[in-house]
């Protein structure tokens, strides 16, 4: 075998060890170590070629970011020195003015609150429903108090009713205490102005039962 065949066998993990002198085996071990380095197998990201051909300004992106940071700090320090100490109240006033402008001019969401009262079978119950128009429909968030949790095999169902009929808007069991109940209606509140909650039996019909526990009327959508 020639010398480079011996070296090749030594480098080749699958070949038999040819038994080389120490100096050569040490050098080849170092070479084999380099071959196991990922830097020798990776390449630049594909988009870099176009950047090279486009003649992009070479920038170390990290230093670029740091340069910007340094420049901003220097600019800020110069402004601070120029303004002295009175810039703080001026800045506070500007921020307050901006906040007031935002509070006044910010468009309000179309939200309506509806109070629901407990009926004879749930006299201690009450709720406030906040209705908000969303792209997908009418979001109804129900804040309930005084309502007992649904019994075994039972659940609460919320409905809206109008001249066209009754539409379900969601169910809940209220077994883990308070917290808002989020309901959704796919019909307009203006055409279904009545909002009420019933007790339903699991496996029962998908229509409102006679057991109404909360009821209210939406005056404005």
């Amino acid at each position: 075998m020639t010398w480079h065949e011996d070296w090749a066998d030594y480098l080749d993990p699958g070949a038999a060890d040819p038994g080389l002198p120490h100096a050569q085996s040490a050098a080849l071990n170092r070479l084999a170590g380099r071959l196991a380095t990922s830097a020798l197998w990776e390449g630049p990201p594909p988009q870099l070629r176009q950047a090279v051909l486009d003649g992009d300004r070479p920038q170390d992106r990290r230093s670029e970011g740091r340069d910007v940071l340094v420049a901003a700090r220097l600019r800020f320090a110069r402004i601070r020195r120029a303004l002295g100490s009175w810039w703080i109240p001026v800045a506070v006033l500007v921020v307050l003015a901006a906040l007031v402008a935002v509070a006044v001019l910010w468009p309000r969401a179309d939200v309506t609150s509806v109070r629901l009262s407990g009926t004879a079978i749930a006299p201690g119950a009450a709720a406030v429903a906040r209705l908000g128009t969303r792209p997908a429909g009418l979001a109804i968030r129900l804040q309930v108090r005084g309502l007992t949790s649904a019994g075994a095999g039972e659940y609460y169902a919320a409905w809206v009713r109008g001249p066209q009929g009754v539409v379900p808007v969601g169910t809940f069991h209220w077994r883990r205490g308070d917290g808002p109940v989020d309901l959704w209606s796919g019909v307009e509140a203006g055409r279904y102005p009545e909002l009420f909650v019933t007790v339903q039996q699991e496996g029962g019909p998908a229509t409102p039962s006679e057991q109404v526990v909360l009821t209210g009327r939406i005056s404005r959508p």
Partner: protein
Amino acid sequence: MTRIDTGDESGSAHRSEQTVQGIDPATVAALRGGDLDALGALYDRYSRAVWSVALTVLDDRALAEAATLETFTRVRRSARTLDPKQDLSGWLLDIARRSAVDVLRRQVVPARDGRDAERRVISMPAVEQAWETWQIRTALDELPEEERVVVRMSHLEEMSDAEIAELLEIPVGSVRSRSRRAHRRLATWLAHLVVKPPRVDR
């Protein structure tokens, strides 16, 4: 060109100058004239080696990307001054190494008051380290693809012949023969890394 003394007077251990450079004289001439296609050809041939040097020096991919971009931008700017008889590979390696070092030097950490800057303590990479990386990477790039894949799997992924065969869906014997051929090429091309330390003529 960068002369490498391998101690092998027969020259059998050397790739030819054409193969080493991988760029024909017409392309070099076009590069000197600012031709973008020539720059693209140079990039296609050497960008991986430049990347390997940058990553070896900087140990950070974002910085290596910046250094690679800077290398070829400098090539573009200084191509006019390239001597057609000059070793293109050595010239490019020199630019790549300097670009990587410059990127490293620019890693400035600003102080909070914005007035002073603290320089990160940097250790200059050895010339030999970059040179060796360049030599190995250009050799790997010259291997036929089917052999390079096997070498990568066996060294980088530490896969056995049987595992490689299963993954590539080829017989184990084919893996063995490809590996043998590839390692013989590498042993020949990289003999100067084994025989004695390189002597670089500048």
